[in-house]
């Protein structure tokens, strides 16, 4: 855990002059229990629009559970989630997606029964005609928009560095490429808020750096990003704010410098990884 203290903090993202956007996501007294065990307890924090906001914490801190609660995969046992000012607690994921929230998964959730390009095209779902009759009878307008969606999906794949896999079956792609494929698919839905669950897990150093670049580029287009990641170098380098969790509760929150210097955070990490 030396890394926490010695990471060089890039000045551009840490500039104090940076304007803080209005809140896009507010989590209020959120809790969730599984069979009597509290996975998330009385957690509150706010994510500002335009930020890269990281959630860190040792294994079992409840990071993925938090993602599942925010994106509607799990229903909260208590508390609220406000997205863009509206209470969206327990709302189904597809409704949240329509409001502009999407995510990737720590354990890949790829459509292995499709090609890579089709995976990304599914991400265009909200922007296409998905009704039955136009599909059955192949209305020309549907075919035209579908062709555009295809070009757009190909462009997104190129953006995340997957141009050579455009015609590949998802099932034949290597792990690192699938991680990016999930990001491209989520981006295809044009989210305002994108939650990335360990995008660099299992990647080598070069691949990690590339993902790092992808995230920065996406954030530069105005998409708010919530990031769960164990790669502290990446987290410290690109985050505007960090929330640290331990055992489902808030441990610390602040800028990367503040969190890195926080005694509780250091203790939690040292305690978790003796």
């Amino acid at each position: 855990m030396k890394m926490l203290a010695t990471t060089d903090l890039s000045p551009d993202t840490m500039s104090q002059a940076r304007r803080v956007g209005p809140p896009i996501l507010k989590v209020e007294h959120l809790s969730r229990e599984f069979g009597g065990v509290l996975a998330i307890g009385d957690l509150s924090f706010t994510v500002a629009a335009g930020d890269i906001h990281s959630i860190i914490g040792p294994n079992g801190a409840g990071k993925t559970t938090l993602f599942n609660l925010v994106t509607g995969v799990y229903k909260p046992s208590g508390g609220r989630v406000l997205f863009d000012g509206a209470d969206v607690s327990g709302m189904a994921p597809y409704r949240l997606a329509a409001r502009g929230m999407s995510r990737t998964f720590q354990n890949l959730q790829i459509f292995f029964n499709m090609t890579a390009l089709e995976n990304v095209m599914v991400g265009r779902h909200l922007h296409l005609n998905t009704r039955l009759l136009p599909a059955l009878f192949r209305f020309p307008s549907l075919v035209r928009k579908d062709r555009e969606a295809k070009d757009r999906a190909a462009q997104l794949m190129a953006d995340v560095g997957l141009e050579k896999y455009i015609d590949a079956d998802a099932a034949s792609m290597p792990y690192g490429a699938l991680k990016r494929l999930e990001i491209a698919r989520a981006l295809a839905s044009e989210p305002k808020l994108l939650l990335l669950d360990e995008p660099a897990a299992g990647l080598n150093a070069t691949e990690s750096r590339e993902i790092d670049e992808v995230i920065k580029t996406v954030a530069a287009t105005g998409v708010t990003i919530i990031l769960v990641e164990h790669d502290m170098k990446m987290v410290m380098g690109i985050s505007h704010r960090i929330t640290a969790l331990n055992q489902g509760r808030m441990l610390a929150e602040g800028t990367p410098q503040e969190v890195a210097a926080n005694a509780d955070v250091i203790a939690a990490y040292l305690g978790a990884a003796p």
Partner: protein
Amino acid sequence: MNALLHGRLTGLLALGAVIAVLPAFLPNNFYLDIAILAGFNAVVCVGLNLLIGYAGQISLGHAGFFGIGAYASGVLVGVYGWPPILALLTGAVVVGLLAFLVAKPILRLKGHYLAMATLGIGIIVSIVLRTESGLTGGPDGMMVEPFKIFGFELYGEKVWYWVVGVLLIGVVWLSLNLIDSPMGRALRAVHGSEVAAEVVGVDTARFKVLVFVVSAVFASVAGSLFAHYAGLITPAKADFFKSIELVTMVVFGGMASTFGAVVGAVVLTLLPQALTVFQDYQQIVLGGILMATMVFMPKGLLPTLAALLPARRRA
């Protein structure tokens, strides 16, 4: 895009060509009859494949929908004197509504629980058909009047062959269209990962219900026309074994392949006819073939054969 479109058209043209030239090779009405039955099964299987192969949802009760369609035509035309086309459409609407009503709760179920629920629906339908003998003629079945439309009567194997042939081409066309559309991708996404589909905006419940309804309506229409063609329908056409037969055709031919469903339906319609030479051993051979193909070709006939060919295109 070009390649895909090409694949669609080649497949359809090939199917059309086979249907067009086949009668020349069939010596008599007995063979034509088998071809017609294969065609009816293929229509149902193309629909069922949308549900099982593409959306990944099991149904062990689709013969029930086939049966409701068949009996709707039998009863409405025979007992109440409706025009056949109106009876067919009414049957399709009723099946569509029924499928819609049951789909929402049962499609929340997964795997074997879904298998159980659909199996139950099919069995209940077949028991009702068997028991309400006042309308349905009970276990012995009922006679069905010929199909008349605009003063024409569809009569004889030669006419019905072309009716079923055209119907099959139409259904295959619809299925290919659906699969190559945003809704089709949403269905396959449901199969691939429901949660991933949801987070990009796919209302998975809605698409599961829709595809269930579509496949049930395909079965109902095939059932109605079959009733008029056969002239006699029995509750056996709606029972558990018929449902299993249909699912087996889909899986045997190759899941998530429209042409696979057609091939599966044709092969498994012919097989029992071919196996009659085994006489007493017929069931043993049929059961053995089912087990062996599924054990050695779990992906089904067409995808397995396609994988043997140079990897040029997917079926």
